[in-house]
């Protein structure tokens, strides 16, 4: 049997997929690391002492210009909405509606100004709020200290205000509540989720806005209106509703300005724009083009407004507001101050000096941030950082020189002015370049990489399909389809490596591996195509055969249509946010449909009815075979399992009326002691039931007779594991206060029991790897007698084995029969459990893994795990039965419907073990099973949480080879049932029937091909789902829900793919390991 080529081929295919995923991720997911540090008033950044002395009380870093500020955020206020063009004769519904802003800007040009406000992608509201407060560029994943909450961990404007004793009052969008918990002095939140609701938020704000402003109990007031955005989503911008909404905003601003005092700064900003359809989220011109309006009753600007409104980046608001209000700039800010707001009333020189000082502070802060960021992460290119550093130090040097000259008053105004101007522009240059560098690495999709990754994944799927068809038919498959492609890939890698060595460029490992993957794929398809015409020519020489082949192929395609149709539905569901949200119900629905369709198809084909005899044909009646009831019971059981598993669901926030399942919370949170005890007993009883079921299954197939360490472990270790888990649950779920003195003991026990389970399970797995044979051989021959007399060949040769195994079998059968019948045993070997040796090893491994995973979940989810095992068992049986009934199928190939139903069950149980593909739904508690709130490394908690999240993926992937093995295991009962019916010739047949899994050993070539085929089919179905997710994320990257639904779904799906494929490899290699052990066992037997 070829073991290594099979594993190598599967590993190669997995690597192709990984390269595709990696490439796509690098183009799609923008990542950034959050820094925990925050600025404070006493930082040594502050300007030189001579200026410091003039700082008024309550100011940090720069003198405070305004004591109060009102920030009005009108969600999705595009620049087009805010600008007013009086010459326009027939404005569109969204044009010329904010007339009051225009009125202010024209009547008081030194008090008010309108800007283009450039938002950075992703233009989703949450990311924009983050940007508007931290002054940074939030990406989809801000790698911070805590994934579990959305709360902003980075230093931000609100945190600085609160830290410096300002009162922040908020009203509007309740997204802020999650982002800034407990930061507000007073707050009025309104639900933001319902996009159809245009008025709740706005009317709520309006109700509180003016009384709050008049009361004066605030220093910073933020009002976030959502009506415009919701109107865009519901109707689009070009709609009369939008005109009404904007007019309402106009009136609101008009009366708000009347309520403002002289020391108050008013900022009206849109967090992003909107497309012509009213959507946002991407980086198109219309989405990033928002409006900013600044107004104060005291003069702000030294000069009049420019002709065309200036464009400012959104992050620039943060340092500007911070310094205007006299608080430190947030630590991670990369924005640039809007200097014209700092010019004040004085002459040109003093204005320039003032601007210079804020630029200086700003530049120092940005430099500090870049320095500390580059210490933590390497994603900013080093040479550009170096260049920035040079810019900064030269500007600072010149700044200090200039200040010294100013102090010595050696410069005269004209020269001074020009030097000041040039220095300011140097600071500006530095700040802009710094921001550009950050933007480039944090806020851009790479469409080329995305398309490349998508193509790689699609090609890998195709490769899986082609190879799974090819593996069975071709002879020198591995050479042409594995070796050559690998060589192609290696050659490309070496060439690229050499090219890099010559050009001295930075080596991008990801790009190189994707090129290598693409090359090896090309190699595969090239060789496949090269062989293809030959076959066609061969077929062409025999026309009648070809036509039959065509018809057969057509029928095959039709047969494929029904499982593939279900898969297609599943993939199509990934493209709609509603279906992704409702996937917990979609997967079971499709699974049930697949199984029902399977039964319906069998019935339609007449497989379920007894072949019609002449008598029945006359009557026109048909009756069912007896097996049909068994099959129907199995299907009913599967449906019940599927339905019951729906009780363990977790909720997403998108479904408003959803209540999470009661079973998800740990037992410790139950108040009712009696219910707690009952649940505890139920869980433990079911756990014991699982062990009992596994043991009785093993006993039934004779795998529990031997005295090998593994069997002993199954007999004694399994109950011990259950005991440990039960003790752990008891300790963990007991109320903390009731134990009093035993507290310390409990602390030890909470750690000790999980470790005992980990230890026992790893011992079990090690034993399984060392000696996976669960066969009990009873040697009753005399010392001289050999089992198979005609055997004189060289022991150990492969050919020999092929001949020997069936013989041993026959012998065993005979000996058993003779023992029973005649009462005297002849000299033979009786091997118990040889027929199910592969499955037994897999079942033991799965049970051990199941124990580990149950330990990581909360107690009551063990019920879901038991359902999982039951459903998998039922699925295997349905598959076996359906195969037996369908008859003609090739025994060594697993049909598509089985693989697809297996994977549907895997994704169904992902949801039914209380998970959802969103970050807040991850069970973080799993990281602390057996640990006391401290981890020295990050790897271990990641493994634990990953195992918890992908529990069902792991179990189903490891158990995948069972799909191939199970029909062989279940052979025995069938033949026994047939026995009474058939009268003659049963002797010979029965010997054949009892081979079970040893049938696989009879033809090792076919066995290895079958394993490869199964693995490829599994990877194909997984890969197709992944491809659908990837395409959805790529195509819908401008969708409103991309960061909330599609991107997390893609992340979970790709991680799930990696986990599944690795576990699949492990499962298959376990089967191979057993095969090795069986070979050695036979050779030892022969030597004896």
């Amino acid at each position, binding site marked *: 049997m070829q073991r290594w080529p099979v594993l190598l081929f599967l590993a190669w295919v997995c690597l192709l997929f990984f390269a595709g995923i990696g490439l796509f991720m690098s183009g799609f997911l923008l990542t950034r690391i959050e820094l925990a540090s925050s600025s404070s008033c006493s930082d040594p950044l502050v300007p030189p002492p001579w200026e410091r002395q003039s700082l008024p009380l309550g100011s940090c870093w720069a003198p405070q210009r305004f004591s109060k500020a009102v920030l009005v955020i009108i969600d999705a206020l595009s620049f087009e909405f805010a600008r007013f063009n009086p010459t326009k004769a027939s404005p569109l519904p969204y044009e010329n509606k904010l007339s009051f802003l225009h009125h202010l800007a024209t009547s008081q040009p030194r008090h008010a100004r309108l800007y283009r406000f450039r938002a950075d992608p992703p233009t989703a509201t949450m990311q924009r709020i983050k940007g508007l407060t931290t002054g940074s560029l939030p990406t989809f994943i801000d790698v911070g200290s805590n994934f579990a909450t959305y709360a902003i961990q980075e230093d931000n404007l609100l945190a600085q205000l609160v830290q410096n004793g300002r009162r922040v009052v908020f009203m509007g969008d309740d997204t802020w509540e999650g982002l800034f918990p407990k930061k507000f002095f007073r707050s009025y939140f309104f639900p933001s989720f319902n996009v*159809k609701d245009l008025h709740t938020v706005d009317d709520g704000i309006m109700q509180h806005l003016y009384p709050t402003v008049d009361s004066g109990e605030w220093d910073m007031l933020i009002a976030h209106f959502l009506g415009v955005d919701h109107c865009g989503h519901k109707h689009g911008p070009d709609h009369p509703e939008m005109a009404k909404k904007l007019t309402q905003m106009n009136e609101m601003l008009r009366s708000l300005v009347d309520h403002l005092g002289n020391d108050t700064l008013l900022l009206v900003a849109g967090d992003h724009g909107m497309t012509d359809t009213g959507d946002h989220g991407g980086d198109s011109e219309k989405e990033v083009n928002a409006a900013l309006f600044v107004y104060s009753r005291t003069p702000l600007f030294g000069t009049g407004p420019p002709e065309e409104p200036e464009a400012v980046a959104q992050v620039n608001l943060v340092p500007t507001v911070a310094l205007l209000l006299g608080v430190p700039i947030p630590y991670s800010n990369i924005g640039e101050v809007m200097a014209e707001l700092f010019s004040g009333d004085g002459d040109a020189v003093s204005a320039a000096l003032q601007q210079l000082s804020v630029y200086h502070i700003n530049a120092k802060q940005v430099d500090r941030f870049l320095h500390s960021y580059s210490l933590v992460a390497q994603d900013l290119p080093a040479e550009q950082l170096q260049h920035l550093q040079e810019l900064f130090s030269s500007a600072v040097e010149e700044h200090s020189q200039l200040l010294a000259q100013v102090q010595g008053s050696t410069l005269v105004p004209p020269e001074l002015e020009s030097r000041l101007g040039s220095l300011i522009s140097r600071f500006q240059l530095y700040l802009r370049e710094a921001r550009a560098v950050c933007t480039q690495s944090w806020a851009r999709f790479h469409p080329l990489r995305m398309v490349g990754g998508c193509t790689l994944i699609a090609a890998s799927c195709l490769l899986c399909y082609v190879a799974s068809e090819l593996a069975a038919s071709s002879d020198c498959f591995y050479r042409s389809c594995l070796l050559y492609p690998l060589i192609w890939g290696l050659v490309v890698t070496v060439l690229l490596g050499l090219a890099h060595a010559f050009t001295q460029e930075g080596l991008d490992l990801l790009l190189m591996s994707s090129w290598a993957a693409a090359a090896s794929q090309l190699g595969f398809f090239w060789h496949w195509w090269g062989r293809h015409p030959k076959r066609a020519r061969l077929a062409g020489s025999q026309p009648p055969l070809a036509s039959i082949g065509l018809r057969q192929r057509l029928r095959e395609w039709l047969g494929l249509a029904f499982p593939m149709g279900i898969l297609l539905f599943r993939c199509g569901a990934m493209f*709609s*946010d*509603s*279906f992704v*949200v*409702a996937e917990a*119900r*979609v997967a*079971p*629905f499709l699974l*049930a*449909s697949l199984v029902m369709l399977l039964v319906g198809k069998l*019935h*339609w*084909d*007449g497989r379920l*009815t007894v072949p019609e005899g002449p008598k029945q044909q006359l009557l*026109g*009646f*048909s*009756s*069912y075979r007896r097996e049909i009831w068994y099959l129907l019971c199995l299907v009913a059981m599967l*449906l*019940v399992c*599927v*339905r019951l598993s*729906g009780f363990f669901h977790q909720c997403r926030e998108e479904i408003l009326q959803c209540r999470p399942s009661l079973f998800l919370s740990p037992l410790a949170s139950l108040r009712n002691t009696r219910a707690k005890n009952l649940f505890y007993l139920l869980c433990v009883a079911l756990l014991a039931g699982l062990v009992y079921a596994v043991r009785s299954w093993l006993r039934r197939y004779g795998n529990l007779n031997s005295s090998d360490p593994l069997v002993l472990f199954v007999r004694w270790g399994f109950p011990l594991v259950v005991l440990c888990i039960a003790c752990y649950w008891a300790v963990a779920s007991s109320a903390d206060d009731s134990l009093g003195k035993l507290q310390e003991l409990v602390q030890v026990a909470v750690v000790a029991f999980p470790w005992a389970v980990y230890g026992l399970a790893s011992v079990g797995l090690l034993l399984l790897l060392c000696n996976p044979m669960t066969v009990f051989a009873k040697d009753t021959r005399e010392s001289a007698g050999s089992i198979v007399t005609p055997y004189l060949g060289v022991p150990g040769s492969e050919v020999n084995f092929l001949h020997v195994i069936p013989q041993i079998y026959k012998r065993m059968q005979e000996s058993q029969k003779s023992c029973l019948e005649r009462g005297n045993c002849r000299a033979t070997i009786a091997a118990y459990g040889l027929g199910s040796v592969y499955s037994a090893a897999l079942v033991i491994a799965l049970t051990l893994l199941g124990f580990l995973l149950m330990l990581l979940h909360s107690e009551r989810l063990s019920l879901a795990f038991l359902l999982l095992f039951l459903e998998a068992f039922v699925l295997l049986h349905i598959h076996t039965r359906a195969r037996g009934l369908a008859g003609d199928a090739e025994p060594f190939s697993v049909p598509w419907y089985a693989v697809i139903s297996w994977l549907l069950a895997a994704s169904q149980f992902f949801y039914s073990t209380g998970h959802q593909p969103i970050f807040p739904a991850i069970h973080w508690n799993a990281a602390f099973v057996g640990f006391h709130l401290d981890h020295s490394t990050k790897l271990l908690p990641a493994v634990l949480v990953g195992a918890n999240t992908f529990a069902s993926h792991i179990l189903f992937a490891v158990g995948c080879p069972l799909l191939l093995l199970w029909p062989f295991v279940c052979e025995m009962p069938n033949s026994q049932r047939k026995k009474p019916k058939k009268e003659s010739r049963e002797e010979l047949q029965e010997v054949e029937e009892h081979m079970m899994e040893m049938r696989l050993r009879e033809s090792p070539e076919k066995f290895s091909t079958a394993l490869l085929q199964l693995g490829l089919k599994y990877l194909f179905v997984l890969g197709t789902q992944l491809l659908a997710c990837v395409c959805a994320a790529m195509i819908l990257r401008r969708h409103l829900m991309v960061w909330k639904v599609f991107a997390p779904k893609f992340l979970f799906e790709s991680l799930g793919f990696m986990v599944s494929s690795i576990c699949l490899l492990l499962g298959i290699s376990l089967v191979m390991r057993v095969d090795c052990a069986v070979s050695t066992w036979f050779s030892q037997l022969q030597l004896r």
Partner: protein
Amino acid sequence: MKEAAIRRLLAANLLCVLSVVLTAVVPAFFWDGFTVLGTHLTWLCICSGCVSTFNILLHLVLKPNLSPKRSSFAHKISRFLKCCIYFFMSCILFHAIIVLYGAPLIESVTETFLFAVLLSTFTTLQCLCMLGPNIQAWIRVFSKNGAMSIWENSLQITTMCTIFGAWFGAFPIPLDWDRPWQVWPVSCSLGATFGYTAGLIIAPLWIHWNRKQLTYKSR
């Protein structure tokens, strides 16, 4: 002969379609505020009632399956009772399957049950009319090459179309369009109804296209 039979089938099926359409239109004249979507449960009742009575009448008139032997009155009564029991059982079975497919278990039981009744009307009742309470015949009809007359062929097609219609009807439920027809079980029952009517129309056409290939075994 065959052409005439097909024409008869077409006429019967078109009458069935008409009855379905009428159940949606006519009650609105008698009762203010009746709409298929708004008062869905009423419509479900009316539709199942009308379609079943109409079907029974139609089969009494047309008698597509003339039973060769004349049966006694007692035999007829027992047949009728059996049919009733079968119909009720099929309602229960459909209800169970719908719940297993994910319909709410406790809430909106009435809706689910009425939907099951509708499905039974479209499928089981037809079978009962055509084949009688004879499970063996049912099994025969619903397998490949099992149909023995164009009526049975039509039965196959309408039943499958109904089931598939109901299945597809479940698809729009999760979408966030907030339409009144997305509420359980409106979309499914509408899907089943459309499937049924489509099946009724498709069946004669399909039989007409394939009349050369269709050769029925004699009993």
